[in-house]
């Protein structure tokens, strides 16, 4: 349903039963919209990885706004922009001054801006989780505030392949998923493919793994974990088993070329560092 902003403004405060809000906060306009929705809604649910953790667009936090704009409007290989025009927040047209929403310095998860009651994780959220959330809300059987729908345990708990995990996993031979013919009946981590199942909230039913891909962590961290990427990095570092530091460095360079993208694919804005520090604070 696409309500016009003015329609919503006219509604009474707290008159919307539930607002599902999708997407991270990128523009000043987003802040304005979600604040409005918060005021009008009894319950706000962050829907999907972007609203929950910042999501993939949150990786933009590794760059400054000017770097992003320069790349997107001038340097990207598919861009044709001979005059080098880039968007600005305001523009003086003959008809008067035009305004565009302002780009924020960092992408933020929803609860950085407003109070959020529940979270539906996932990129994209899986139907079973959406149904569970709807059932709970419609039946009035509401979980404690702040609950992330999904399992309270990591994905391994529900993964069929967990049984096949050897007693000890020590990774001597890291592989990216396209470099190995995965045995679909054995734990991917044990085959040297960095599956983030152990660090990721379960509840999805291990769909990616059933489809032959390792978990990339879209359901985010568990309740006891503050920083998804740091935890992921720390568990991977603990089980990488190379005696030779130089070799380990080379292997990591080769098989983990984008560590920020790997460990913080969905959650950089929700991490302790939030993004690249460029001085001067937010």
């Amino acid at each position, binding site marked *: 349903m696409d309500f016009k902003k003015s329609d919503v403004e006219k509604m009474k405060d707290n008159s919307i039963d539930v607002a599902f809000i999708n997407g991270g906060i990128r523009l000043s306009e987003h802040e304005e919209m979600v604040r409005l929705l918060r005021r009008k809604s009894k319950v706000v649910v962050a829907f999907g990885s972007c609203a929950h953790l910042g999501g993939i667009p949150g990786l933009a936090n590794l760059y400054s706004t000017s770097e992003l704009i320069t790349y997107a409007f001038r340097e990207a290989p598919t861009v044709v922009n001979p005059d080098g025009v880039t968007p600005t927040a305001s523009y003086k047209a003959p008809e008067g001054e035009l305004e565009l929403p302002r780009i924020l310095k960092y992408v933020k998860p929803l609860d950085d801006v407003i109070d959020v009651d529940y979270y539906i994780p996932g990129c994209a959220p899986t139907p079973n989780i959406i149904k569970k959330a709807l059932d709970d809300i419609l039946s009035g059987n509401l979980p404690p505030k702040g609950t992330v729908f999904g399992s*309270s345990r990591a994905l*391994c708990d529900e993964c069929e392949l*967990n049984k096949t995990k050897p007693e000890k996993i020590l990774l001597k031979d890291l592989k990216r998923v396209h470099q190995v013919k995965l045995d679909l009946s054995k734990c991917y981590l044990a085959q040297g493919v960095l599956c983030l199942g152990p*660090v990721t909230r379960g509840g999805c039913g291990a769909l990616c793994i059933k489809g032959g891909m390792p978990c990339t962590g879209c359901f985010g961290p568990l*309740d006891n*974990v*503050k920083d998804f990427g740091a*935890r992921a990095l*720390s568990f991977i570092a603990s089980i990488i088993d190379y005696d030779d530091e130089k070799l380990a460095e080379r292997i990591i360079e080769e098989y983990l070329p984008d560590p920020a993208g790997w460990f913080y694919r969905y959650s950089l804005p929700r991490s302790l560092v939030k993004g690249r520090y460029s001085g001067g604070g937010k």
Partner: protein
Amino acid sequence: MGEVRIGVYICHCGKNIGGVINPSRVAEFASKLPNVVVARDYMYMCSSPGQMLIEEDIKRHNLNRVIVAACSPRMHEPTFQGVLKKAGLNPWLLEMVNIREHVTWVHEDVPDKAEEKAKELVYAAVMRAQHLYEITIHRLPVVKSALVIGGGIAGIRAALDLANAGIKVYLVEKKQSIGGKMAQLDKTFPTLDCSKCILTPLMVDVARHPNITIYAYSEVVDVSGSAGDFKVKVRLKPTYVDWSKCTGCGYCTERCPARAPREFDEGLGTRKAIYFDFPQAVPRRPVIDPKYCLWFTKGICRACEKLCPVGAIDFNQKDRYIELNVGAIIVATGYELYDMTKLREYGYGKYKNVITGLQLERLSDADGPTKGKIVRLSDGKEPETVAIVLCAGSRDEKHVRYCCRFGCAAAIKHIYYVKHSVPEAKVFVLYTDIRAFGKGYEEFYQRLRGMDDVYFIRGRPAEIFEAKDGSLIFDVFDSNTGQLLSIKADLVVLESAVVPPKDWESLRRMLKISCDPGGFALELHPKLRPFETTADGIFLAGAIQGPKDIPDTVAHAAAAAAAAIGFLSKGEVESTPYLAVVNEDLCSGCGLCASVCPFDAIEIKEEGGRRIAKVNVIRCKGCGACAATCPSGAMQQNYFTDTQIVSEVSALAGGAK
């Protein structure tokens, strides 16, 4: 635990702290922090009145957290934990702040900033203390028995000491007889007393001791359980002789027609297919070697069976396994000689007259292949010239880097063997350094070095060549005189490097103990705890910890036994307070904690259709590796939970409030 009530105590430590900062101002600051009920400063907190002060406060103010800002917890944590205990509080509700080593000693020149830092550290401790909780120490009873692995002089000494202390001992030896390397030696340095004469009485003591059970011709195949309660599986190899019937008369060994190289003679002599390791063997029960027995190889003979007066021969014997339950394990598996064929330039294995020091022992021994005569192996003639080469493989980057620690003294003893057997022989000793460090060794060295026709040359031989008559020719550069010498010797004796036994690695993994770069068992501390390991209840005796001569081995074994006796007589084992604890509700059974645990303390168990990590509370040493690895935050370490650490760090990052 309900309401948090914190007492904060700032120590002056005389002028150590009080001379730099103002402890009463720090106490004043602390008194305003969250949940702090009382904050005081005192001249010497660790003194009896200081301790009393805390104890009374705990009772009067109903405190349930105590923070002492004083010296390093390494000094006085146990002191103040004792105070809490006395006042009826769990000792782990104590938090120490090190404002001496971390503040006043290092920032004496900036007292204002030092005081600021002290306040910040106290603030962080207060924030952390909010999340402290009572820690239970698990106690398990200890099985009052011990396993000694290896029946050499180290194992013998350790077994006797344990048994004399009233502890039941199981002694497992892989060979037919206990006695080890020492039984193979003719004499011992520096006193030149007969090796067997001093060893065999101890072997007899072991055999007769009511508290010792010997499992000879056996090996440990599995170790499970933990300190105080190990389950050990031992394989009794088939001897083909029913030892319970056998009387050790030895008719069988006399009449057996099949011959085999004698291991006890380092391959020089021969033995029968049914044999004792040596005449004084303990137990005196023979074994049949199926590799040479005519019944096993050709299906004929069975002479032993026909001759045995008690019908003890049993060709159908199979491996048997027994399970032992012991509280402590002493590892005394000794050493092996480095494979001398790897030193190709010396021609060992290729030239008959190049032998090892241990082979010279066998030549010199009356029970040896030559009945005690030192001869050239190629023709049985007495050698006119003997070259003794030290550090054969030792202190050599291509072979082993460490010193064998007895080669020098053995070489000096070997001069004696040669001069005693062939008085007119010339002896060249080719050495790197003479390390005569033991009691009486230097005197021994001086005595033998001064003998006629004994030449010490500081250098290692270049390639050794064999002449037609079997004698050996080589060049050596003497760095003492700067001369290149050409030597022709009838016999070359290599004082071999020393390595851990071949099958040690698998045993080491079973025991879960670490090794040093040379492969020997790693001690808990090289100086202060050289006979203990990182695994509680497992002790090291003798050369398995590193090469040792007999006196050092015996001392080491006795120390290991004493440590084991101390451990066993305490009656119970305690878990570390810093135990890893699993929140089973959150555990996904991913198993990464078990992968990183260096003590094998974590097992993933199936429970109600789920996989859950379970911590063995005795094996866990509280290193925290699992807690740092656990991707879901389900594994926490007592006293260092994420919440405790994060609240402390956040307090520090936020600055003093």
